[in-house]
Protein backbone atom coordinates (compact mmCIF):
# COMPACT_ATOMS: atom_id res chain seq x y z
CA UNK A 1 0.00 0.00 0.00
CA UNK A 2 2.62 2.45 1.14
CA UNK A 3 4.86 1.83 -1.83
CA UNK A 4 1.94 2.13 -4.29
CA UNK A 5 1.00 5.47 -2.81
CA UNK A 6 4.65 6.47 -2.91
CA UNK A 7 4.79 5.61 -6.62
CA UNK A 8 1.67 7.67 -7.31
CA UNK A 9 3.08 10.63 -5.43
CA UNK A 10 6.40 10.24 -7.23
CA UNK A 11 4.66 10.39 -10.59
CA UNK A 12 2.59 13.41 -9.54
CA UNK A 13 5.75 15.20 -8.43
CA UNK A 14 7.48 14.35 -11.72
CA UNK A 15 4.54 15.65 -13.74
CA UNK A 16 4.31 18.79 -11.58
CA UNK A 17 8.04 19.49 -11.92
CA UNK A 18 7.92 18.97 -15.69
CA UNK A 19 4.99 21.36 -15.93
CA UNK A 20 6.74 24.07 -13.91
CA UNK A 21 9.85 23.64 -16.05
CA UNK A 22 7.77 23.99 -19.22
CA UNK A 23 6.00 27.09 -17.83
CA UNK A 24 9.26 28.82 -16.96
CA UNK A 25 11.15 27.71 -20.07
CA UNK A 26 10.38 30.66 -22.41
CA UNK A 27 11.54 33.09 -19.69
CA UNK A 28 15.04 31.70 -20.17
CA UNK A 29 15.12 33.58 -23.45
CA UNK A 30 16.56 31.89 -26.59
CA UNK A 31 13.85 32.03 -29.25
CA UNK A 32 15.33 29.01 -31.02
CA UNK A 33 14.74 26.73 -28.05
CA UNK A 34 11.29 28.17 -27.36
CA UNK A 35 10.33 27.32 -30.94
CA UNK A 36 11.93 23.88 -30.68
CA UNK A 37 10.03 23.02 -27.51
CA UNK A 38 6.83 24.33 -29.13
CA UNK A 39 7.44 21.89 -31.98
CA UNK A 40 8.05 19.07 -29.50
CA UNK A 41 4.84 19.81 -27.62
CA UNK A 42 2.90 19.74 -30.90
CA UNK A 43 4.44 16.32 -31.58
CA UNK A 44 3.47 15.33 -28.02
CA UNK A 45 -0.19 16.10 -28.82
CA UNK A 46 0.21 14.00 -31.97
CA UNK A 47 1.76 11.13 -29.97
CA UNK A 48 -0.96 11.39 -27.30
CA UNK A 49 -3.63 11.06 -30.00
CA UNK A 50 -1.97 7.94 -31.40
CA UNK A 51 -1.55 6.44 -27.93
CA UNK A 52 -5.34 6.39 -27.60
CA UNK A 53 -5.38 4.02 -30.60
CA UNK A 54 -2.21 1.99 -30.14
CA UNK A 55 -1.83 2.00 -26.39
CA UNK A 56 -5.42 1.90 -25.22
CA UNK A 57 -7.50 0.42 -28.03
CA UNK A 58 -4.89 -2.01 -29.35
CA UNK A 59 -5.04 -0.69 -32.92
CA UNK A 60 -1.57 -0.17 -34.45
CA UNK A 61 -2.05 2.53 -37.07
CA UNK A 62 0.72 3.23 -39.53
CA UNK A 63 -1.24 6.01 -41.21
CA UNK A 64 -1.85 8.47 -38.41
CA UNK A 65 0.03 11.25 -40.20
CA UNK A 66 -2.89 11.53 -42.64
CA UNK A 67 -5.02 13.28 -40.01
CA UNK A 68 -2.12 15.43 -38.84
CA UNK A 69 -1.71 16.55 -42.45
CA UNK A 70 -5.43 17.08 -42.97
CA UNK A 71 -5.58 19.34 -39.91
CA UNK A 72 -2.61 21.31 -41.21
CA UNK A 73 -3.98 21.57 -44.75
CA UNK A 74 -7.34 22.79 -43.44
CA UNK A 75 -5.57 25.90 -42.15
CA UNK A 76 -3.42 26.18 -45.28
CA UNK A 77 -6.41 25.99 -47.62
CA UNK A 78 -8.67 28.24 -45.52
CA UNK A 79 -6.12 31.00 -45.00
CA UNK A 80 -7.03 33.99 -47.23
CA UNK A 81 -4.25 35.37 -49.41
CA UNK A 82 -4.37 39.02 -48.35
CA UNK A 83 -5.54 38.91 -44.74
CA UNK A 84 -5.14 36.85 -41.62
CA UNK A 85 -7.44 33.90 -40.88
CA UNK A 86 -9.26 33.75 -37.57
CA UNK A 87 -8.10 31.15 -35.07
CA UNK A 88 -11.67 30.79 -33.82
CA UNK A 89 -12.91 29.78 -37.26
CA UNK A 90 -10.01 27.75 -38.62
CA UNK A 91 -9.21 25.71 -35.50
CA UNK A 92 -12.71 24.24 -35.08
CA UNK A 93 -12.81 23.72 -38.86
CA UNK A 94 -9.53 21.77 -38.76
CA UNK A 95 -10.80 19.57 -35.93
CA UNK A 96 -14.05 19.00 -37.77
CA UNK A 97 -12.42 18.13 -41.10
CA UNK A 98 -9.83 15.82 -39.51
CA UNK A 99 -12.58 14.21 -37.44
CA UNK A 100 -14.80 13.61 -40.46
CA UNK A 101 -11.87 12.21 -42.45
CA UNK A 102 -10.99 9.88 -39.56
CA UNK A 103 -14.61 8.79 -39.25
CA UNK A 104 -14.87 7.95 -42.95
CA UNK A 105 -11.53 6.13 -43.03
CA UNK A 106 -12.49 4.44 -39.76
CA UNK A 107 -15.65 3.03 -41.34
CA UNK A 108 -13.34 0.95 -43.53
CA UNK A 109 -10.30 0.25 -41.40
CA UNK A 110 -11.78 -0.78 -38.06
CA UNK A 111 -13.45 -3.66 -39.86
CA UNK A 112 -10.06 -5.35 -40.09
CA UNK A 113 -7.66 -6.47 -37.40
CA UNK A 114 -4.01 -6.88 -36.55
CA UNK A 115 -1.63 -6.82 -39.42
CA UNK A 116 -4.38 -5.97 -41.90
CA UNK A 117 -5.07 -2.84 -39.89
CA UNK A 118 -1.43 -1.76 -40.15
CA UNK A 119 -1.38 -2.22 -43.92
CA UNK A 120 -4.76 -0.67 -44.58
CA UNK A 121 -4.09 2.44 -42.50
CA UNK A 122 -0.79 2.91 -44.33
CA UNK A 123 -2.54 2.52 -47.68
CA UNK A 124 -5.25 5.04 -46.84
CA UNK A 125 -2.68 7.54 -45.57
CA UNK A 126 -0.81 7.14 -48.84
CA UNK A 127 -4.04 7.84 -50.72
CA UNK A 128 -4.41 11.17 -48.90
CA UNK A 129 -0.75 11.87 -49.59
CA UNK A 130 -1.41 11.46 -53.31
CA UNK A 131 -4.52 13.64 -53.10
CA UNK A 132 -2.46 16.55 -51.75
CA UNK A 133 0.66 15.76 -53.76
CA UNK A 134 -0.83 15.16 -57.21
CA UNK A 135 -3.84 17.43 -57.46
CA UNK A 136 -4.28 21.15 -58.03
CA UNK A 137 -6.45 21.19 -54.92
CA UNK A 138 -3.45 20.57 -52.66
CA UNK A 139 -1.10 22.75 -54.80
CA UNK A 140 1.26 19.84 -55.43
CA UNK A 141 4.55 18.94 -53.81
CA UNK A 142 5.45 22.56 -52.96
CA UNK A 143 2.50 22.81 -50.61
CA UNK A 144 1.07 26.13 -49.44
CA UNK A 145 2.83 29.03 -47.78
CA UNK A 146 0.60 31.28 -45.71
CA UNK A 147 1.23 35.01 -45.94
CA UNK A 148 -0.25 35.79 -42.54
CA UNK A 149 -0.38 34.06 -39.18
CA UNK A 150 -3.93 33.50 -37.97
CA UNK A 151 -5.25 36.01 -35.41
CA UNK A 152 -7.10 35.30 -32.18
CA UNK A 153 -9.20 38.48 -32.25
CA UNK A 154 -12.74 38.32 -30.83
CA UNK A 155 -14.61 41.51 -31.75
CA UNK A 156 -11.98 44.14 -30.96
CA UNK A 157 -10.24 42.15 -28.22
CA UNK A 158 -7.10 40.13 -28.95
CA UNK A 159 -6.21 37.82 -26.04
CA UNK A 160 -2.88 36.71 -27.50
CA UNK A 161 -0.70 37.31 -30.54
CA UNK A 162 -0.02 34.26 -32.75
CA UNK A 163 2.95 35.98 -34.38
CA UNK A 164 4.63 36.07 -30.97
CA UNK A 165 6.81 33.01 -30.33
CA UNK A 166 6.17 32.97 -26.57
CA UNK A 167 2.41 33.36 -27.01
CA UNK A 168 2.31 30.42 -29.44
CA UNK A 169 4.42 28.46 -26.96
CA UNK A 170 1.94 29.01 -24.14
CA UNK A 171 -1.05 28.29 -26.40
CA UNK A 172 0.52 24.96 -27.45
CA UNK A 173 1.47 24.14 -23.85
CA UNK A 174 -2.10 24.82 -22.72
CA UNK A 175 -3.50 22.65 -25.51
CA UNK A 176 -1.05 19.84 -24.76
CA UNK A 177 -2.07 19.86 -21.09
CA UNK A 178 -5.72 20.03 -22.13
CA UNK A 179 -5.26 17.04 -24.47
CA UNK A 180 -3.51 15.12 -21.70
CA UNK A 181 -6.25 15.85 -19.16
CA UNK A 182 -9.00 15.20 -21.69
CA UNK A 183 -7.58 11.78 -22.59
CA UNK A 184 -7.11 10.95 -18.92
CA UNK A 185 -10.78 11.73 -18.28
CA UNK A 186 -11.82 9.77 -21.38
CA UNK A 187 -9.76 6.75 -20.33
CA UNK A 188 -11.25 6.75 -16.83
CA UNK A 189 -14.78 6.97 -18.19
CA UNK A 190 -16.79 3.82 -18.95
CA UNK A 191 -16.00 4.48 -22.62
CA UNK A 192 -12.26 4.39 -21.93
CA UNK A 193 -12.61 1.26 -19.82
CA UNK A 194 -14.44 -0.41 -22.69
CA UNK A 195 -11.61 0.54 -25.10
CA UNK A 196 -9.05 -1.05 -22.78
CA UNK A 197 -11.28 -4.08 -22.53
CA UNK A 198 -11.25 -4.33 -26.33
CA UNK A 199 -7.48 -4.04 -26.28
CA UNK A 200 -7.15 -6.96 -23.87
CA UNK A 201 -9.85 -9.26 -25.18
CA UNK A 202 -12.05 -8.24 -28.06
CA UNK A 203 -14.04 -11.47 -28.18
CA UNK A 204 -14.97 -11.26 -24.53
CA UNK A 205 -16.08 -7.65 -24.90
CA UNK A 206 -18.21 -8.63 -27.85
CA UNK A 207 -19.80 -11.51 -26.03
CA UNK A 208 -20.50 -9.18 -23.10
CA UNK A 209 -22.63 -7.20 -25.55
CA UNK A 210 -20.33 -4.25 -26.25
CA UNK A 211 -20.66 -2.88 -29.79
CA UNK A 212 -16.94 -3.30 -30.42
CA UNK A 213 -17.04 -1.89 -33.96
CA UNK A 214 -18.63 1.36 -32.78
CA UNK A 215 -16.21 1.73 -29.89
CA UNK A 216 -13.24 1.27 -32.19
CA UNK A 217 -14.71 3.70 -34.71
CA UNK A 218 -15.23 6.29 -31.96
CA UNK A 219 -11.66 5.81 -30.76
CA UNK A 220 -10.30 6.11 -34.32
CA UNK A 221 -12.33 9.28 -34.94
CA UNK A 222 -11.26 10.87 -31.66
CA UNK A 223 -7.60 10.00 -32.28
CA UNK A 224 -7.83 11.46 -35.80
CA UNK A 225 -9.43 14.66 -34.51
CA UNK A 226 -6.67 15.18 -31.95
CA UNK A 227 -4.03 14.46 -34.60
CA UNK A 228 -5.77 17.16 -36.65
CA UNK A 229 -5.29 19.54 -33.72
CA UNK A 230 -1.57 18.79 -33.70
CA UNK A 231 -1.38 19.27 -37.47
CA UNK A 232 -3.23 22.58 -37.25
CA UNK A 233 -0.80 23.85 -34.61
CA UNK A 234 2.14 22.74 -36.73
CA UNK A 235 0.80 24.71 -39.73
CA UNK A 236 0.20 27.67 -37.42
CA UNK A 237 3.73 27.55 -36.04
CA UNK A 238 5.53 27.25 -39.38
CA UNK A 239 3.06 29.13 -41.62
CA UNK A 240 3.59 26.42 -44.18
CA UNK A 241 2.12 23.06 -45.22
CA UNK A 242 3.33 20.43 -47.68
CA UNK A 243 2.52 16.79 -48.46
CA UNK A 244 5.43 15.55 -46.34
CA UNK A 245 3.23 16.24 -43.30
CA UNK A 246 1.20 13.20 -44.42
CA UNK A 247 4.13 11.02 -45.39
CA UNK A 248 4.61 7.55 -43.95
CA UNK A 249 7.84 8.79 -42.32
CA UNK A 250 5.69 11.01 -40.15
CA UNK A 251 3.50 8.03 -39.23
CA UNK A 252 6.56 5.93 -38.46
CA UNK A 253 8.18 8.63 -36.34
CA UNK A 254 5.11 9.08 -34.14
CA UNK A 255 4.98 5.32 -33.55
CA UNK A 256 8.63 5.54 -32.59
CA UNK A 257 7.81 8.26 -30.04
CA UNK A 258 5.28 5.93 -28.44
CA UNK A 259 7.78 3.09 -28.22
CA UNK A 260 10.44 5.42 -26.82
CA UNK A 261 8.15 6.63 -24.07
CA UNK A 262 6.40 3.33 -23.48
CA UNK A 263 3.13 2.39 -25.20
CA UNK A 264 -0.04 2.76 -23.17
CA UNK A 265 1.09 5.62 -20.96
CA UNK A 266 -0.04 9.21 -21.60
CA UNK A 267 2.97 10.56 -19.76
CA UNK A 268 5.11 8.21 -21.84
CA UNK A 269 3.74 9.66 -25.07
CA UNK A 270 4.88 13.15 -24.01
CA UNK A 271 8.26 11.89 -22.83
CA UNK A 272 8.61 9.95 -26.10
CA UNK A 273 8.07 13.12 -28.17
CA UNK A 274 10.84 14.88 -26.24
CA UNK A 275 13.14 11.85 -26.49
CA UNK A 276 12.53 11.54 -30.24
CA UNK A 277 13.33 15.18 -30.99
CA UNK A 278 16.40 15.09 -28.73
CA UNK A 279 17.61 11.97 -30.55
CA UNK A 280 16.94 13.51 -33.97
CA UNK A 281 18.69 16.78 -33.02
CA UNK A 282 21.76 14.92 -31.73
CA UNK A 283 22.00 12.77 -34.86
CA UNK A 284 21.45 15.77 -37.14
CA UNK A 285 24.31 17.57 -35.43
CA UNK A 286 26.58 14.60 -36.16
CA UNK A 287 25.92 13.94 -39.85
CA UNK A 288 23.65 14.82 -42.76
CA UNK A 289 22.96 11.10 -43.11
CA UNK A 290 21.38 11.15 -39.68
CA UNK A 291 18.52 8.82 -40.71
CA UNK A 292 21.11 6.05 -40.89
CA UNK A 293 21.85 6.55 -37.20
CA UNK A 294 18.15 6.91 -36.40
CA UNK A 295 17.38 3.66 -38.23
CA UNK A 296 20.17 1.82 -36.46
CA UNK A 297 19.01 3.23 -33.11
CA UNK A 298 15.45 2.01 -33.79
CA UNK A 299 16.69 -1.48 -34.62
CA UNK A 300 18.82 -1.67 -31.47
CA UNK A 301 15.96 -0.27 -29.40
CA UNK A 302 13.52 -2.93 -30.61
CA UNK A 303 15.97 -5.78 -30.12
CA UNK A 304 17.44 -4.78 -26.77
CA UNK A 305 14.79 -2.53 -25.14
CA UNK A 306 11.36 -3.84 -26.09
CA UNK A 307 9.56 -1.76 -23.43
CA UNK A 308 11.07 1.60 -24.42
CA UNK A 309 12.72 4.10 -22.09
CA UNK A 310 9.96 3.49 -19.55
CA UNK A 311 11.21 -0.08 -19.10
CA UNK A 312 14.69 1.23 -18.32
CA UNK A 313 13.23 3.49 -15.65
CA UNK A 314 11.19 0.60 -14.24
CA UNK A 315 14.18 -1.75 -14.25
CA UNK A 316 16.33 0.89 -12.57
CA UNK A 317 13.69 1.42 -9.93
CA UNK A 318 13.33 -2.30 -9.35
CA UNK A 319 17.08 -2.60 -8.92
CA UNK A 320 17.20 0.30 -6.47
CA UNK A 321 14.18 -0.85 -4.49
CA UNK A 322 15.53 -4.39 -4.52
CA UNK A 323 18.82 -3.18 -3.06
CA UNK A 324 16.99 -1.19 -0.40
CA UNK A 325 15.20 -4.35 0.72
CA UNK A 326 18.45 -6.29 0.79
CA UNK A 327 19.91 -3.77 3.16
Amino acid at each position, binding site marked *: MGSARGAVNGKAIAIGAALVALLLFPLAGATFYTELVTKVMILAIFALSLDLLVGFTGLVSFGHAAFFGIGAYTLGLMAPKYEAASLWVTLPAALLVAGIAAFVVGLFVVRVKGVYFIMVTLAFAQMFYFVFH*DTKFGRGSDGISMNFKPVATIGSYTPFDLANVAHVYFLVLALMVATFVFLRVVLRSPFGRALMGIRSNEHRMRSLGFPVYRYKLASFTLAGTLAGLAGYLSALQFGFVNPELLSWHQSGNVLLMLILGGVGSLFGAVVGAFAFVALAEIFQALTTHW*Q*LLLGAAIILLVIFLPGGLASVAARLKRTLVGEAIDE
Partner: protein
Amino acid sequence: MDVYTFLIQLLNGVQYGLLLFLVASGLTLIFGIMGIINLAHGSFYMIGAYMAFSLASLTGNLFVAIVVGVVLSVLLGIVLEWALFSHLYKRDHLEQVLLSYGLILVFEELRSLIAGNDVHGVAVPAVFSGSIPLTDTLSYPVYRLFMSVVCLALAGLLYLLIHRTRLGMMIRAGASNREMVAALGLNINLVYRLVFALGVALAAFAGMLAAPVSSVYPGMGTQVLIICFVVVVIGGIGSIWGALAAALLIGVADTFGKVLVPQAAGVTVYLLMAAILLWRPEGLFKRSG
Protein backbone atom coordinates in the same frame (compact mmCIF):
# COMPACT_ATOMS: atom_id res chain seq x y z
CA MET B 1 -9.73 3.64 -77.23
CA ASP B 2 -9.18 1.35 -80.20
CA VAL B 3 -8.52 -2.34 -79.89
CA TYR B 4 -4.72 -2.05 -80.21
CA THR B 5 -4.40 0.65 -77.57
CA PHE B 6 -6.61 -1.48 -75.37
CA LEU B 7 -4.41 -4.50 -76.01
CA ILE B 8 -1.23 -2.58 -75.23
CA GLN B 9 -2.66 -1.22 -71.99
CA LEU B 10 -3.91 -4.67 -71.03
CA LEU B 11 -0.47 -6.17 -71.64
CA ASN B 12 1.11 -3.36 -69.63
CA GLY B 13 -1.35 -3.93 -66.81
CA VAL B 14 -0.72 -7.67 -66.75
CA GLN B 15 3.04 -7.14 -66.86
CA TYR B 16 2.85 -4.64 -63.97
CA GLY B 17 0.59 -7.00 -62.06
CA LEU B 18 2.95 -9.94 -62.51
CA LEU B 19 5.84 -7.83 -61.28
CA LEU B 20 3.83 -6.82 -58.22
CA PHE B 21 3.11 -10.49 -57.67
CA LEU B 22 6.83 -11.28 -57.35
CA VAL B 23 7.19 -8.71 -54.57
CA ALA B 24 3.85 -9.42 -52.90
CA SER B 25 4.29 -13.20 -52.91
CA GLY B 26 7.41 -12.85 -50.73
CA LEU B 27 5.60 -10.45 -48.42
CA THR B 28 2.62 -12.75 -48.04
CA LEU B 29 4.78 -15.90 -47.66
CA ILE B 30 6.88 -14.29 -44.94
CA PHE B 31 3.77 -13.16 -43.11
CA GLY B 32 1.83 -16.35 -43.67
CA ILE B 33 4.61 -18.64 -42.53
CA MET B 34 6.70 -16.62 -40.11
CA GLY B 35 4.02 -14.27 -38.80
CA ILE B 36 6.29 -11.31 -39.54
CA ILE B 37 5.13 -8.05 -41.04
CA ASN B 38 8.10 -6.64 -42.88
CA LEU B 39 7.87 -3.01 -44.01
CA ALA B 40 11.39 -3.26 -45.40
CA HIS B 41 10.24 -5.69 -48.08
CA GLY B 42 9.99 -2.84 -50.59
CA SER B 43 13.61 -1.99 -49.84
CA PHE B 44 14.64 -5.35 -51.28
CA TYR B 45 12.97 -4.33 -54.55
CA MET B 46 14.89 -1.05 -54.43
CA ILE B 47 18.14 -2.85 -53.62
CA GLY B 48 17.54 -5.18 -56.55
CA ALA B 49 17.06 -2.29 -58.94
CA TYR B 50 20.22 -0.55 -57.72
CA MET B 51 22.15 -3.82 -57.98
CA ALA B 52 20.97 -4.15 -61.58
CA PHE B 53 22.17 -0.61 -62.22
CA SER B 54 25.62 -0.99 -60.63
CA LEU B 55 26.29 -4.61 -61.58
CA ALA B 56 25.12 -4.11 -65.17
CA SER B 57 27.54 -1.23 -65.61
CA LEU B 58 30.30 -3.33 -63.98
CA THR B 59 29.75 -6.50 -65.95
CA GLY B 60 28.22 -4.93 -69.04
CA ASN B 61 25.47 -7.55 -69.13
CA LEU B 62 22.11 -7.36 -67.37
CA PHE B 63 21.70 -11.13 -67.21
CA VAL B 64 25.03 -11.66 -65.50
CA ALA B 65 24.06 -8.82 -63.16
CA ILE B 66 20.79 -10.57 -62.36
CA VAL B 67 22.46 -13.89 -61.57
CA VAL B 68 25.03 -12.22 -59.29
CA GLY B 69 22.28 -10.05 -57.79
CA VAL B 70 20.08 -13.02 -56.93
CA VAL B 71 22.95 -14.76 -55.15
CA LEU B 72 23.73 -11.59 -53.21
CA SER B 73 20.11 -11.07 -52.23
CA VAL B 74 19.74 -14.64 -50.98
CA LEU B 75 22.80 -14.01 -48.80
CA LEU B 76 21.32 -10.70 -47.64
CA GLY B 77 18.09 -12.50 -46.72
CA ILE B 78 19.90 -15.17 -44.73
CA VAL B 79 21.98 -12.60 -42.84
CA LEU B 80 18.97 -10.37 -42.08
CA GLU B 81 16.88 -13.29 -40.85
CA TRP B 82 19.73 -14.51 -38.66
CA ALA B 83 20.72 -11.12 -37.25
CA LEU B 84 17.39 -9.30 -36.91
CA PHE B 85 14.15 -11.01 -37.85
CA SER B 86 14.78 -14.20 -35.88
CA HIS B 87 14.45 -12.03 -32.74
CA LEU B 88 10.96 -10.96 -33.72
CA TYR B 89 8.96 -14.18 -33.92
CA LYS B 90 7.56 -13.85 -30.42
CA ARG B 91 7.20 -10.07 -30.52
CA ASP B 92 4.05 -8.13 -31.32
CA HIS B 93 3.30 -6.44 -34.63
CA LEU B 94 4.18 -2.98 -33.35
CA GLU B 95 7.78 -4.00 -32.71
CA GLN B 96 8.04 -5.78 -36.07
CA VAL B 97 6.76 -2.64 -37.76
CA LEU B 98 9.27 -0.46 -35.93
CA LEU B 99 12.27 -2.68 -36.56
CA SER B 100 11.51 -2.90 -40.25
CA TYR B 101 10.87 0.87 -40.32
CA GLY B 102 14.36 1.34 -38.87
CA LEU B 103 15.67 -0.99 -41.55
CA ILE B 104 14.05 1.09 -44.30
CA LEU B 105 15.79 4.22 -42.98
CA VAL B 106 19.12 2.39 -42.92
CA PHE B 107 18.71 1.03 -46.46
CA GLU B 108 17.57 4.38 -47.86
CA GLU B 109 20.51 6.24 -46.31
CA LEU B 110 22.97 3.59 -47.45
CA ARG B 111 21.51 3.89 -50.92
CA SER B 112 21.95 7.66 -50.75
CA LEU B 113 25.56 7.29 -49.50
CA ILE B 114 26.57 4.66 -52.06
CA ALA B 115 24.57 5.50 -55.18
CA GLY B 116 23.45 9.10 -54.56
CA ASN B 117 19.99 10.55 -55.03
CA ASP B 118 19.89 10.75 -58.83
CA VAL B 119 17.55 8.87 -61.10
CA HIS B 120 19.43 6.31 -63.18
CA GLY B 121 18.50 4.43 -66.31
CA VAL B 122 19.41 0.83 -67.07
CA ALA B 123 19.75 -0.18 -70.71
CA VAL B 124 17.40 -2.82 -72.09
CA PRO B 125 19.52 -5.87 -73.10
CA ALA B 126 20.27 -5.79 -76.82
CA VAL B 127 18.55 -9.15 -77.45
CA PHE B 128 15.21 -7.76 -76.29
CA SER B 129 15.54 -4.16 -77.41
CA GLY B 130 13.17 -4.49 -80.35
CA SER B 131 9.45 -3.86 -80.60
CA ILE B 132 6.64 -5.84 -82.13
CA PRO B 133 4.74 -3.63 -84.56
CA LEU B 134 0.96 -3.77 -84.10
CA THR B 135 -0.18 -1.03 -86.47
CA ASP B 136 1.64 1.67 -88.46
CA THR B 137 2.15 3.76 -85.32
CA LEU B 138 1.72 1.40 -82.38
CA SER B 139 4.16 -1.28 -81.27
CA TYR B 140 4.88 -3.30 -78.14
CA PRO B 141 8.38 -3.56 -76.66
CA VAL B 142 9.79 -7.11 -76.61
CA TYR B 143 11.42 -6.59 -73.21
CA ARG B 144 8.04 -6.07 -71.54
CA LEU B 145 6.78 -9.32 -73.04
CA PHE B 146 9.94 -11.02 -71.84
CA MET B 147 9.27 -9.67 -68.32
CA SER B 148 5.75 -11.09 -68.32
CA VAL B 149 6.98 -14.49 -69.50
CA VAL B 150 9.70 -14.62 -66.85
CA CYS B 151 7.26 -13.63 -64.10
CA LEU B 152 4.76 -16.26 -65.25
CA ALA B 153 7.50 -18.89 -65.32
CA LEU B 154 8.51 -17.92 -61.79
CA ALA B 155 4.92 -18.12 -60.61
CA GLY B 156 4.81 -21.64 -62.08
CA LEU B 157 8.07 -22.58 -60.34
CA LEU B 158 6.72 -21.21 -57.09
CA TYR B 159 3.65 -23.39 -57.54
CA LEU B 160 5.82 -26.46 -58.09
CA LEU B 161 8.04 -25.55 -55.14
CA ILE B 162 5.13 -25.20 -52.76
CA HIS B 163 2.95 -28.07 -53.95
CA ARG B 164 5.40 -30.64 -55.28
CA THR B 165 8.53 -30.54 -53.15
CA ARG B 166 9.44 -31.60 -49.65
CA LEU B 167 10.43 -28.05 -48.75
CA GLY B 168 7.06 -26.88 -50.05
CA MET B 169 5.34 -29.40 -47.87
CA MET B 170 7.23 -28.04 -44.86
CA ILE B 171 6.32 -24.49 -45.88
CA ARG B 172 2.64 -25.37 -46.12
CA ALA B 173 2.76 -27.24 -42.82
CA GLY B 174 4.56 -24.33 -41.18
CA ALA B 175 1.94 -21.92 -42.44
CA SER B 176 -0.93 -23.86 -40.91
CA ASN B 177 0.68 -24.87 -37.60
CA ARG B 178 4.16 -23.81 -36.64
CA GLU B 179 4.31 -25.46 -33.21
CA MET B 180 3.15 -28.77 -34.61
CA VAL B 181 5.84 -28.73 -37.30
CA ALA B 182 8.50 -27.99 -34.73
CA ALA B 183 7.10 -30.69 -32.43
CA LEU B 184 7.33 -33.23 -35.26
CA GLY B 185 11.05 -32.64 -35.34
CA LEU B 186 11.32 -30.64 -38.53
CA ASN B 187 13.84 -27.85 -38.49
CA ILE B 188 11.38 -24.96 -38.64
CA ASN B 189 14.14 -22.39 -38.15
CA LEU B 190 15.76 -23.55 -41.36
CA VAL B 191 12.42 -23.31 -43.16
CA TYR B 192 12.01 -19.75 -41.87
CA ARG B 193 15.47 -18.78 -43.02
CA LEU B 194 14.91 -20.24 -46.48
CA VAL B 195 11.48 -18.65 -46.84
CA PHE B 196 12.84 -15.27 -45.82
CA ALA B 197 15.75 -15.56 -48.26
CA LEU B 198 13.32 -16.64 -50.97
CA GLY B 199 11.13 -13.60 -50.31
CA VAL B 200 14.12 -11.25 -50.41
CA ALA B 201 15.37 -12.84 -53.63
CA LEU B 202 11.95 -12.61 -55.31
CA ALA B 203 11.61 -8.91 -54.44
CA ALA B 204 15.17 -8.11 -55.49
CA PHE B 205 14.72 -10.08 -58.71
CA ALA B 206 11.57 -8.08 -59.46
CA GLY B 207 13.57 -4.89 -58.92
CA MET B 208 16.34 -6.06 -61.25
CA LEU B 209 13.90 -7.15 -63.93
CA ALA B 210 12.00 -3.87 -63.74
CA ALA B 211 15.07 -1.63 -63.72
CA PRO B 212 15.30 -1.15 -67.52
CA VAL B 213 11.60 -0.25 -67.74
CA SER B 214 10.98 1.80 -64.59
CA SER B 215 14.46 3.35 -64.19
CA VAL B 216 16.14 3.38 -60.79
CA TYR B 217 15.19 6.10 -58.31
CA PRO B 218 15.04 6.88 -54.57
CA GLY B 219 11.74 6.02 -52.97
CA MET B 220 10.93 3.24 -55.45
CA GLY B 221 10.94 0.71 -52.62
CA THR B 222 8.30 2.37 -50.50
CA GLN B 223 6.08 2.99 -53.47
CA VAL B 224 6.06 -0.68 -54.42
CA LEU B 225 5.71 -1.74 -50.77
CA ILE B 226 2.50 0.19 -50.24
CA ILE B 227 0.98 -1.10 -53.48
CA CYS B 228 1.96 -4.60 -52.40
CA PHE B 229 0.18 -4.08 -49.10
CA VAL B 230 -2.92 -3.28 -51.12
CA VAL B 231 -2.35 -6.47 -53.12
CA VAL B 232 -1.95 -8.57 -49.97
CA VAL B 233 -5.00 -7.00 -48.32
CA ILE B 234 -7.13 -7.68 -51.38
CA GLY B 235 -5.76 -11.17 -51.93
CA GLY B 236 -5.92 -12.26 -48.32
CA ILE B 237 -2.82 -12.54 -46.15
CA GLY B 238 -0.84 -15.72 -46.52
CA SER B 239 -2.51 -16.74 -49.78
CA ILE B 240 -0.09 -16.87 -52.71
CA TRP B 241 -2.80 -17.41 -55.29
CA GLY B 242 -4.80 -14.60 -53.74
CA ALA B 243 -1.72 -12.44 -54.18
CA LEU B 244 -1.48 -13.46 -57.86
CA ALA B 245 -5.13 -12.65 -58.59
CA ALA B 246 -5.01 -9.40 -56.61
CA ALA B 247 -1.72 -8.33 -58.21
CA LEU B 248 -3.19 -8.81 -61.70
CA LEU B 249 -6.34 -6.94 -60.66
CA ILE B 250 -4.31 -4.04 -59.25
CA GLY B 251 -1.93 -3.99 -62.21
CA VAL B 252 -4.75 -3.77 -64.73
CA ALA B 253 -6.83 -1.35 -62.62
CA ASP B 254 -3.88 0.97 -62.08
CA THR B 255 -2.87 0.95 -65.74
CA PHE B 256 -6.38 1.64 -67.03
CA GLY B 257 -6.97 4.14 -64.23
CA LYS B 258 -4.01 6.17 -65.49
CA VAL B 259 -5.34 6.10 -69.05
CA LEU B 260 -9.03 6.67 -68.39
CA VAL B 261 -9.02 9.03 -65.39
CA PRO B 262 -5.55 10.59 -65.26
CA GLN B 263 -6.65 13.10 -62.58
CA ALA B 264 -7.34 10.31 -60.10
CA ALA B 265 -4.43 8.07 -61.17
CA GLY B 266 -2.81 7.98 -57.72
CA VAL B 267 -5.93 6.93 -55.86
CA THR B 268 -7.54 4.28 -58.13
CA VAL B 269 -6.01 1.29 -56.40
CA TYR B 270 -6.83 2.61 -52.93
CA LEU B 271 -10.47 3.13 -53.86
CA LEU B 272 -10.53 -0.41 -55.22
CA MET B 273 -9.08 -1.60 -51.90
CA ALA B 274 -11.72 0.35 -49.97
CA ALA B 275 -14.51 -1.22 -52.03
CA ILE B 276 -13.15 -4.72 -51.49
CA LEU B 277 -12.74 -4.08 -47.76
CA LEU B 278 -16.44 -3.27 -47.54
CA TRP B 279 -17.34 -6.39 -49.44
CA ARG B 280 -14.82 -8.87 -47.98
CA PRO B 281 -12.78 -7.45 -45.09
CA GLU B 282 -10.55 -10.53 -44.95
CA GLY B 283 -9.58 -10.36 -48.62
CA LEU B 284 -10.80 -12.28 -51.64
CA PHE B 285 -8.95 -15.52 -50.99
CA LYS B 286 -8.69 -15.81 -47.25
CA ARG B 287 -8.56 -19.45 -46.30
CA SER B 288 -11.13 -20.41 -43.73
CA GLY B 289 -9.72 -21.42 -40.37
